[in-house]
C-alpha cells in the first residue's frame, strides 16, 4: 500500500489533494460529486468577518487555457459560516481549511480567534493575495513587513496551523515565503491568481465589471511551478503548491518541484469528478516508480545534467 499522507505543521492530511479556495464553494456544494472525506483538505471560499456582496457581473471570462475572475470575495461572513456550513462539513468528515481575508490586521486576528474556537476547523489559510479587492489583504501580501506582521499576529492567537497564501504578483515570491516562515507560519500556499485583464474589442470595454481580475488555470502552471521551486529552496516549512493543476502529472510536477501538498481550483470547475482521477493517478505513479510514501517525493527534482538514451523514437 502506498502512503499518500502528508504533514503541514501539526496537521496530517490523508493525501496531498486540497480543493482550492474560491473554487469549491463552501465544500457542501460538491458533496454530491465527491466524498469530501477522501480529499486531503477542503479550502473554503475566502471569508471576511462580515457578509460581502462581491462585484457585479461579469465576474469571469475564459482566456487561453485559463480564466479571469473578479468575484470580489462575495461571502456569508465567518459567523454564518460557522453556523450554517461548518456542521455539515463536520458531518461529511471534511478536513476544513478556512481561507480568511481582512482589511486590517485586527480583522485577521479576530477571524483567527473566532475560528480557533469553532469545532471542525483544521487549519487557517491567510488570504493576503486576492488581486480583486482594493481593501483586502493584498496590501499585506505585497509587502514583506505586512506579511510578517499579519502572520505573527495570527500566530499569537491560534494554535491551528497557519498558512499564508502568497501572491505571484511580486518580483521575488521566495522572500515572502521566508518572511512567513520567520513569522511562525506552518506552511505557505501559492500561487493565488495573476492580475490580468480582458477587453471586448468591439465595445472597447473591459469584460469584467472590476476591469481587472485574476488569471488561473493551466496557463499559469509553468510560472507557479517555478515559484514553488524557488520557495522550496528558501524555506523549511511545507509549501502548498497550486496553479493550473488538471491532472495527476501536473500535481506531481508541483510535488517534485517542492510542494508537500497541492490545491486544485479551476480544474474542478471543468470536472467536479476530477478528484478520484487525481488520486488514481498519484497511486498509479507511486506503483510504477516503486515509491512507498509520497512525502519522499517532495522536492526531489534532479537538476544535474541529463543522460542520453537509446530510444527508438
Amino acid at each position, binding site marked *: 500500500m502506498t502512503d499518500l499522507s502528508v504533514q503541514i505543521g501539526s496537521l496530517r492530511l490523508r493525501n496531498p489533494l486540497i480543493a482550492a479556495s474560491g473554487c*469549491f464553494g463552501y465544500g457542501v456544494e460538491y458533496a454530491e460529486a465527491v466524498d469530501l472525506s477522501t480529499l486531503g483538505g477542503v479550502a473554503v471560499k475566502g471569508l471576511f468577518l462580515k457578509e460581502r456582496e462581491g462585484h457585479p457581473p461579469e465576474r469571469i471570462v475564459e482566456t487561453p487555457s485559463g*480564466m479571469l475572475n473578479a468575484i470580489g470575495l*462575495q461571502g456569508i461572513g465567518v459567523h454564518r459560516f460557522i453556523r450554517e456550513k461548518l456542521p455539515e462539513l463536520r458531518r461529511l468528515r471534511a478536513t476544513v481549511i478556512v481561507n480568511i481575508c481582512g482589511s486590517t490586521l485586527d480583522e485577521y486576528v479576530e477571524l483567527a480567534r473566532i475560528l480557533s474556537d469553532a469545532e471542525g476547523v483544521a487549519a487557517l489559510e491567510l488570504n493576503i493575495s486576492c488581486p480583486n479587492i482594493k481593501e483586502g489583504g493584498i496590501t499585506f501580501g505585497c509587502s514583506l513587513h505586512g506579511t510578517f506582521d499579519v502572520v505573527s499576529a495570527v500566530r499569537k492567537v491560534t494554535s491551528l496551523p497557519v498558512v499564508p497564501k502568497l501572491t505571484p504578483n511580486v518580483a521575488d515570491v521566495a522572500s515572502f515565503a521566508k518572511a512567513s516562515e520567520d513569522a511562525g507560519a506552518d506552511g505557505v500556499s501559492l500561487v493565488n491568481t495573476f492580475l490580468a485583464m480582458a477587453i471586448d474589442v468591439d465595445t472597447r470595454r473591459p469584460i469584467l465589471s472590476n476591469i481587472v481580475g485574476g488569471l488561473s488555470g493551466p496557463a499559469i502552471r509553468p510560472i507557479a511551478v517555478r515559484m514553488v521551486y524557488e520557495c522550496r529552496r528558501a524555506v523549511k516549512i511545507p509549501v502548498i503548491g497550486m496553479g493550473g493543476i488538471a491532472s495527476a502529472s501536473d500535481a506531481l510536477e508541483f510535488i517534485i518541484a517542492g510542494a508537500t501538498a497541492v490545491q486544485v481550483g479551476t480544474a*474542478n470547475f*471543468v470536472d467536479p469528478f476530477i478528484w478520484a482521477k487525481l488520486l488514481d493517478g498519484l497511486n498509479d505513479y507511486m506503483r510504477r516508480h516503486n515509491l512507498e510514501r509520497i512525502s519522499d517525493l517532495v522536492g526531489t527534482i534532479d537538476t544535474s545534467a541529463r543522460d542520453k538514451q537509446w530510444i527508438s523514437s
Partner: protein
Amino acid sequence: MLVDVEARVIRNTRLSSDYNVIALAAPDIAAATAPGQFVMVKSGRGRDPLLRRPFSVFEVLWSNGRVDGLSLLSKRVGVTTGMLFDSVEGDTVSCLGPLGQPFAVVDPPAEAWMVAGGVGLAPFATLGDALVARKTTTTLFYGARSGAELFYLDWFTARGIRLVLATEDGSIGDRGRITVPLERELRRAASAEVMVYACGPEPMLEAVARVAATFKRQSQVSVERVMGCGMGGCYSCVIPVRDAHAAQHAGSERTRPPHHYVRSCIAGPVFRGEDLVWD
C-alpha cells in the same frame, strides 16, 4: 443524481445557418432531468475551450420505450456552440447534469403561458410535455428575428400547444417584440388563472416579469448568466435578488431596491419574476 458522461453524438440537425439540435447519448442525465434544468457541456478534446458551457435540456429522447438520450437546441455564438454546430455523429460531447432548479409545473385550472425569445425556446419542449401530461392548457408565445428563426412549431402544435408568434421583421406573427401580444392577451384574459414562464434575453425577461406583475400574474423566468461551473463553486453566475425583508433597508440611496446576489446556477436558473432585481 449528478452524472458526467462522455456522450456520443447520435445526430446533429441543423435548423438554420446558426441553430442546430444535437442529440446526445446521455440517458442517465435525460431520465433525471426536470423541465428547466440544464447541463454543463464541453465539446472537443484538450484545453480549448477550457470551461464547460451551460445548455438547457431541450428534448428527452425516447427509443423503444426507453429514454436513450437528450437533445440540446444550440445557437452558434462562439467556440463551444460553433463546435456543437459542426459536430458529426460519433463525436463525443462531455455532459454534466442535470443541474439547477426546474420550473414549478402548474395544474389545471391554471393555464400555462410560455414566453420564448430566440434560443430561449430550449426549456419549453420539456416543460410543454410536462404541462400537457397534466392536461394544463398551454400557450407558447415565441419571438424571433424572423420567421426563418422560428423552429419546432409543428412539434408544439402536435401536442395541442397554442402558438402566438412575433418576429422582429414581421415575417410571421406580430411585428416586434413578443411582449406586445403577451400584454394584449393578458389584458383580454383578465379572469383566467395564468402562470407565465419565460426564457430569453434578460431585457425580455424583465419586460415579461413586469407585464405579468402588471396583470397580477405570477411568472417564472429562466435566466442565462455566464457560468464557470454550474455547481455553486465559483460565484460567477450571480444575479441580484430582492432582499426578503426589504423594509430594513428602507431609506437606502440606491436606485435599485435592496438586494443580494445569489448564484443562478443553484438558486436558479429559474426564478420567480418578482424576486429578481433587474440591473
